[in-house]
């Protein structure tokens, strides 16, 4: 083999090795994306339209917060109309998958209570969505890069945006996403948050599909357009699918009809515990009352009956609290994960130091 051939072979080998180490596709600032942003081997959903990659980076973690997830990769994309930035997508996700999930505290807990949906929350997985108004002054390195990108093109960006925040995690991965929208196209403040929240609750499952690389079909409309169209898109699809199944003969006409009626009862639900109902108060009060009446019946003494009922109630409460505490302690030990939830800096976080970028 001649020297030039050897050199060529070495270059090819190096390129092949380098190719193997790099992600399959890494977006660069200035590139445009539609529908899905691939990041750290996951699919991140984007509302319909052309999105411009404006910043890419990683967020470093405090020493004690780091788990074996490598780094947290960040991406910032923008959507514009003329010279105005109309939407910003901010994504954070882990580079390396874990095997035993992420430890508490759960990031959904900090979200504003008025517009929040805890889709599910178990030992191993969680998904929540919330909506708030945010100021986009500070932020992570990817956002600093995006600000430079926006400034270099003389585009305008409102400092206050309407933000839909999504968190989804499972045993292996997490995605923390925030979609910021220019409030100019929305109606008044309350209506705007309500419209965005209604849209966000329908968009949230897309992140779960993306985490599993199962995003298919056309991208979702953005919140403004979605608010114009049907407010029951999932139900509409379900009715159509049932009708098609009946047309194919897969289900009977009677089943199609009853399932169409049943489909109307499906609603997005929060995994949070319901507030104590009237029934709950009834059961809480009825036991001491029954004890009091029984004690009075036996002793025929009101002070003695009250004392017995109170003693029983206090003892019962104490035993219940002790049992609950030991159960919580036991389950807490059993379900502790080795990887803490990463400390993330979001757009608008002015009080947190920015980590390194790459």
């Amino acid at each position, binding site marked *: 083999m001649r020297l030039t051939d050897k050199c060529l072979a070495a270059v090819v080998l190096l390129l092949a090795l380098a190719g193997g180490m790099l992600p399959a596709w890494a977006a660069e600032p200035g590139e445009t994306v539609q529908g899905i942003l691939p990041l750290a081997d996951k699919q991140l959903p984007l509302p*319909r*339209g052309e999105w411009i990659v404006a910043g890419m980076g990683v967020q470093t973690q405090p020493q004690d917060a780091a788990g074996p997830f490598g780094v947290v990769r960040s991406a910032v994309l923008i959507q514009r*109309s003329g010279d*105005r930035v*109309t939407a910003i997508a901010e994504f954070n996700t882990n580079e390396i998958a874990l095997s035993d999930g992420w430890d508490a505290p759960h990031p959904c807990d900090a979200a504003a209570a008025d517009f929040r949906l805890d889709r599910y929350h178990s030992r191993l997985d969680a998904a929540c969505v919330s909506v708030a108004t945010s100021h986009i002054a500070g932020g992570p390195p990817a956002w600093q890069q995006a600000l430079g990108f926006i400034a270099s093109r003389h585009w305008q960006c409102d400092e206050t945006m309407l933000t839909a925040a999504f968190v989804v995690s499972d045993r292996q991965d997490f995605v923390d996403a925030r979609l910021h929208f220019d409030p*100019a*196209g*929305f*109606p008044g403040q309350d*209506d705007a948050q309500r419209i965005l929240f209604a849209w966000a609750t329908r968009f949230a499952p897309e992140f779960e599909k993306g985490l599993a690389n199962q995003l298919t079909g056309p991208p979702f*409309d*953005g919140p*403004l*357009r979605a*608010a*114009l*169209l*049907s*407010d*029951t*898109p999932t*139900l*509409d*699809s379900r*009715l*159509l699918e*049932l*009708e*098609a199944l*009946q*047309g194919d003969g897969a289900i009977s*006409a*009677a089943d*199609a*009809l009853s399932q*169409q*009626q049943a489909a*109307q009862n499906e609603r997005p639900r929060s995994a949070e515990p319901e507030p104590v109902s009237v029934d709950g108060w009834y059961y809480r009060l009825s036991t001491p009352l029954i004890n009091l009446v029984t004690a009075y019946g036996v002793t025929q003494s009101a002070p003695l009956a009250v004392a017995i009922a109170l003693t029983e109630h206090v003892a019962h409460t104490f035993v219940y609290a002790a049992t609950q505490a030991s159960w919580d302690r036991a389950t807490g030990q059993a379900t502790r994960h080795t990887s803490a939830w990463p400390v993330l800096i979001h757009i608008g976080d002015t009080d947190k130091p920015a980590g390194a970028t790459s």
Partner: protein
Amino acid sequence: MAGLWLIVALFAPAWPCVAAAQPMLLVQDDLADLRPNEVTGQTWATTSRADLQGQFCAARSGTPTRLALVSHALSRRQRDDCAAAKDGKLVEALIGRRAVIAMTSGANFALTPELLYRALVRDVAAPDGEFIANRVARWRDLDASLPDAPIRILLPPSGSIESRIVSDVILYEGCAVRAGAMLPADPLKRMAICTTLRTDNAVTHAADRPTVTAWLRGQGNAALALVGVAVLLAEPDLETALPLDGVTPSFASIADGRYRAALPVYLLTVISPETARTVAGIAGPLLAEATIGPLGKLPRRGLAPLAAADRVKLRVSLGREFENAAD
């Protein structure tokens, strides 16, 4: 089971009696763009609004099947006369609505029928009661809260039902609010004064525009396009809709009647024991989810759909009518 009739009819082969006699299928001329013939596979005659209800009700009793698509409910008298003439039960089913929505390329401001009337009409009432040429050029001239930008409005194509909604619903209502006392008593003159549009560059007709989105982008932020549901669905980049009288347009607000720039679309038919099966065979495909649902054919042709619960209820209730008639 109620509703089964309709669902079975949806997928059943044509009933033998459909082929036996020619049904009378009528569609109001400005609803012909819904193209019901492509849904039912049968010919629907296009008839003017003025003639349609008369033709439907005056049909010879030998005509076994009558269905019509209309944009107005029958009056009580028409309903009584029509049902008595047909030897059956007259059914008037709301299947959706046609609507006009004001879209912009991003600006958001509140509209009322009165503002649109003052922006669009050729002659406006002067303080002395005379009607003079409308020379308002900027939105800010109409109201201080509106954008300081030239008035540029794209209207629906002439002859479309959306064009009629602009005239009969928006302009007429705005005119009544603005110039009520000054209007002539003669309804025809009143209508002419209220709905004759200006012809300067403030107003453009949609006929030969490539797309509404392109037109809006070329006209600046405060330009608005009055569009129907078909255009809205065909152009995914349209996303900012202006509220009318404080109600933001949406399929939901159109369906529940809060958004008023809309006209209903009714399916008229007469159901008797003899015609129940035939009518079900034609009405079934027309009322299917794949036709009147938001993802169906008719919304893409301009029909604003009913709410999901109402669509299911419609199929169930009409199915019950067919079932009862056949029993």
